[in-house]
């Protein structure tokens, strides 16, 4: 099932066994900035790990529930879930079970950040980096620590830019 279910009596939206909640770009980037104000560079890894873990758990369930077994189909499904949730358009480039590249443009987080505070040379797309790390873990059914993600470019760096992620299985 790739479509979230809504239980009005419990006030719960669920996809792949995980709760989803509506939030807008103002809150998303304000919270991110608060985390970074409080914890400095540590906040980056915290956000990436949180995104990776949640994506891995959610997508593993989605793949099982939808009986998606093919690796490429799983990565395309991950990109669709990402887009359906409003995080932006992700293009899976030259991806194998050993890694590859993901390009995100537009990116919700970059768009939110630049609309409030302008372009930045600093990394912003921590959620996307963690999400696709978790997606590759789920698609390959491997341990999370085996996947490394490197951010090659950031959509918030300038107008019209993409976030480019390099994923590598070690």
């Amino acid at each position: 099932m790739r479509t979230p279910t809504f239980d009005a009596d419990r006030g719960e939206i669920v996809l792949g066994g995980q709760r989803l909640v509506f939030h807008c770009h103002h809150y998303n980037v304000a919270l991110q900035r608060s985390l970074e104000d409080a914890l400095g560079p540590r906040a980056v890894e915290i956000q990436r790990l949180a995104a990776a873990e949640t994506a891995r758990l959610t997508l593993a369930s989605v793949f099982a529930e939808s009986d998606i077994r093919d690796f490429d189909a799983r990565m395309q499904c991950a990109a669709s879930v990402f887009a359906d949730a409003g995080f932006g358009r992700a293009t899976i480039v030259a991806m194998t079970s050993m890694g590859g590249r993901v390009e995100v443009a537009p990116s919700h987080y970059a768009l939110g950040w630049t609309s409030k505070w302008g372009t930045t040379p600093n990394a912003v797309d921590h959620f996307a980096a963690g999400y696709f790390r978790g997606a590759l873990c789920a698609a390959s059914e491997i341990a999370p620590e085996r996947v490394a993600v490197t951010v090659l470019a950031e959509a918030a760096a300038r107008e019209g830019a993409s976030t480019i992620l390099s994923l590598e299985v070690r």
Partner: protein
Amino acid sequence: MAIDERAIVDAVAGLELRGNEEGLIPAFGLHLTTHFANYYNRSSFAVARALEGSGLEEDARTLLVEAGHVCAFNTFGGIMRSAEWDAVVAPMISSREDWIRGMVAVINAFGWGRWTIRELIPDERLCIEIENGYECAGWLKDYPVSHTPRCYLAAGGVAGLMNLLYVGDITLRPTLSDAYYSELFRDARSFGARATSCLACGDDRCVLVATRQP
């Protein structure tokens, strides 16, 4: 006509908000996401836990609640100024307080748990009860019973409802600028909210009370 919460929840849920061809959800003048509750929880609780025992616990709470204020101002404010509000909620509004009742009904379609207004004294006090709030339900899944409330976003949201209506005047559809935010949330008349019960602390639900801050 009274606020029909179920009709509002059904209408908002029926919007089927999902990403367009660009993977974005533009709605209510905002860009929405259907985000992972656990992502927020893990990230927020990491800050709170990192600062516990350092003497900066209250600073951590302030940061996280402030993000909730930003959410309330922009999300609730954006929704109350939207065409969707005009179409679905506005026809049910017959009093100033119905703006809060209508917004709470909208919130109940967001996946944030079940919000119920226990008390609303105009311009003075708002008490909201939250069942199955995502922050505190998430806390209990991953951590021991807490010694302090964990409904940070909810506290910002409850205070924000009062500030939008009684410190500012959202019924006049003001522009939601940075200056207006400061006017609503940095004023001597601004409301703040505190939890008097919290699911994360072992209570059966969260209860948040917004009053003017001393």
